[in-house]
């Protein structure tokens, strides 16, 4: 089945130690998104790629970076994780047309020690 895959499902890192989360999709969608979701809150958009065009949200900290080497893969890099970065990180995809649903992956739960 076509889907959005995130690896790993659970990630533990140390304070200040860089970490990379990965996302892949078999939907061949143009747009890939990264969201941060903290407990009991709505997903918060960090940034997205439309094809190779990167779009950063204004309030996304510089500590968060992203790479999209090809259509299928997108990575979230956290350069120096702080305790406040512990959250669920969700990847989603869409066709890129306004009014189309976003398909979410299962998320990666990040713990910062």
């Amino acid at each position, binding site marked *: 089945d076509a889907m959005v895959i995130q690896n790993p499902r659970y990630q533990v890192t140390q304070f200040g130690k860089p970490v990379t989360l990965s996302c892949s999709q078999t939907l061949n969608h143009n747009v890939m998104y990264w969201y941060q979701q903290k407990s009991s809150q709505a997903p918060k958009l960090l940034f997205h790629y439309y094809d190779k065009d990167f779009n950063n949200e204004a309030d996304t900290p510089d500590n968060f970076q992203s790479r999209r080497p090809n259509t299928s893969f997108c990575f979230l890099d956290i350069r120096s994780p702080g305790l406040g970065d512990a959250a669920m990180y969700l990847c989603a995809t*869409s066709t890129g*047309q306004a009014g*189309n649903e976003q398909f979410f992956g299962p998320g990666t739960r990040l713990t910062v020690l």
Partner: protein
Amino acid sequence: GESVGLHLPTLSVQEGDNSIINCAYSNSASDYFIWYKQESGKGPQFIIDIRSNMDKRQGQRVTVLLNKTVKHLSLQIAATQPGDSAVYFCAENSLSSGYALNFGKGTSLLVTP
């Protein structure tokens, strides 16, 4: 700024009853609305969507109602089952926001036997 929000943070219903989850939005230019269900530890899952040129759309056991006059969206779940227990998010986008979804805060639905 523009926002999407929910009236009730939690909703408890008995199994077999109908559930109604409400959502208010403020962007009069919103033209696409979507409901997601998110179970604990999982990514959001699409339930149903509706475009602004409609006021009602039905799916399997779910109905979405859109009242553009008062900027109100609701999700009705018929014959609620224990498997419906989850957090429900409404989200919207508009041509001006392109393909970025604006999420509401979420309502936790608890179905009791």
